[in-house]
């Protein structure tokens, strides 16, 4: 039996600012994980990744990150993505300032 597919979001860093961004369902790059499109189908996720990768003038380092869908939006499965969506733990210098 194939393993069940872990839902994903498309994430990257913004080309100019370097900020962590997520791809929304309406093809916008958003700094908020809550606004990201949750991809529950593997083939669709791959397609969204290919589309996103073509947007070279907007982002850098694009990839699919594992998420657990919840009522309030996707939640990171791994702590690395938790830090990426929040910012560093030693200073309030990351997204935690604005979000």
């Amino acid at each position, binding site marked *: 039996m194939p393993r069940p597919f872990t839902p994903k979001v498309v994430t990257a*860093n913004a*080309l*100019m*600012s*370097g*900020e*962590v961004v997520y791809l929304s369902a309406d093809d916008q790059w958003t700094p908020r994980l809550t606004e990201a499109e949750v991809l529950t189908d593997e083939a669709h996720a791959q397609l969204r990744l290919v589309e996103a990768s073509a947007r*070279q*003038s907007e982002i*850098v*380092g694009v990839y699919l990150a594992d998420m657990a869908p919840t009522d309030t939006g996707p939640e990171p*499965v*791994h*702590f*690395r993505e938790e*830090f*990426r969506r929040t*910012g*560093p*733990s*030693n*200073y309030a*210098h*990351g*997204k935690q300032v604005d979000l």
Partner: protein
Amino acid sequence: MYTYSDFDAAFVAERNRQFRQQVERRIDGSLTEDEFKPFRLMNGLYLQLHAYMLRVAIPYGTLRSEQMEMLAHLAETYDKGYGHFTTRQNIQYNWPELGDIPNMLDDLAKVEMHAIQTSGNTIRNVTADHFAGAAADEVADPRPVAEMIRQWSTDHPEFQALPRKFKIAVTGAQADRAVIRAHDIGLRLHEQNGELGAEVIVGGGLGRTPMIGKTIAEWVSLEDLPAYLESVVSVWNLLGRRDNKYKSRIKITVHEHGIDDIRARVADRYELVRPAYNGAHMDLFHQIAAQFGSPAFRNVPTDAYGAAYKADPVFRSWADTNLSAHKVDGYAIVQISLKAHGETPGDASAEQMRAMARIARDYGHDELRISHEQNVVLPHVHTSDLPAVHDILKAHGLATANIGLISDIIACPGMDYCALATARSIPIAQEIATRFDELKLEHEIGELKIKISGCINACGHHHVGHIGILGLDRAGVENYQVTLGGDHTETLALGDRTGPGFSAEEIVPAMERIVDTYLAHRDGPEETFLQAYRRLGMDPFKTALYGEQPSKRTKAA
């Protein structure tokens, strides 16, 4: 101190001009990221977890005050008001924007600094003893040799696409403060029959497969040194494993072929390389060396120091902990701790950088050093000026008296910033320092170095910490492996693993149990943690960490 020649200045300006165009072409879409990435790495620009990171070289850890002021300017103008000093005598800016990088590099060039070869498979920033030119135990100042190597290795056409990165460290003293046996090449300057030369050590390194460097030549004269270094790098350049990045460093090449085989190959290569060095390099070396003369030391009374030492216990504690012996009577080497309890190891704010620059200008013959232990050094301060220096440091949160103590922790950026990390290191360092400050135990514990890395790459030197901590990802949870008995000095040793790792919540109590065991078993305050560990072995520490027997403090709590 070395100042750029016209050649240096023109070279850096040209590189900056090229990189500015490369950035513009990336932004306007003519370059893809795949095309741009090698260019940005050549210029020290990384993509990290939350943002870009610019790594700026501080060659052999030496700075003038105007350079430190420029680092402050960059922190304030293009970053979030601070910079992070690393274990390789670099400074990292964690939040620059892509469009600002060319301006940052131009600003750096104004004070003869750059970010070239701080990344990529090249010869990286050459590091040196942070007490260079000042230490009482110094045979020769390592900086002229380090500067010669910097010039030789910068943009060296043969060494721009090496199997992997290559790191060189130089010391000219008896004590090793540059961890030379943990570098691809380590050099120890010493004299033979009155002539200065270097012991050449190869194949050291930490990371996934830690190795202690081996001596390939007991003594190579200064005149022969560049050709010899070129031969070593060139032998590895051909032999080094490009098929497997975990086996590509020279330590693996030396390990697989054996030091005798490598020595013979280097000797063959040397015969070919040496004739190309026709003596012009020595003219250059003498020009470089002439720029590293001693400052005009003052010979004035030291009474002010004695009076403050007697009268002020805070000053006394700082002086006892943060000063080291200088080669000139009446002078001291000052270490400024960037490890205030609970703060991020190695971070300095723009305001702190300016304060340190001002002290260097007013009281320190305009010289500053960055240590691989992530502290700042004022190499030449007359002891009569120490009370004034201490006052200024205090006013800027820079007077923490903890050099060499348990809270003087090396910590790499870890998963708070680094894209390669498997766990965080900074919060662990902050918690340990805060806890032992609360216990008011650190002066009683004495010399004890904790070093923390956030992944197997070991930028935090955990293998050579008296206590080493390695952050790993165990099934999606941060887990911290502990080693004991590492040694970063001339008696370099790798620590031994205690056993299974600890969670983030368990790691501080684990440190307490280790320290309690040491305090309970030591022969007296004069027996350091490392000495006690060497005498006692792992057993009592293992029992304290994993055994049924809870330690005294846990019982009392």
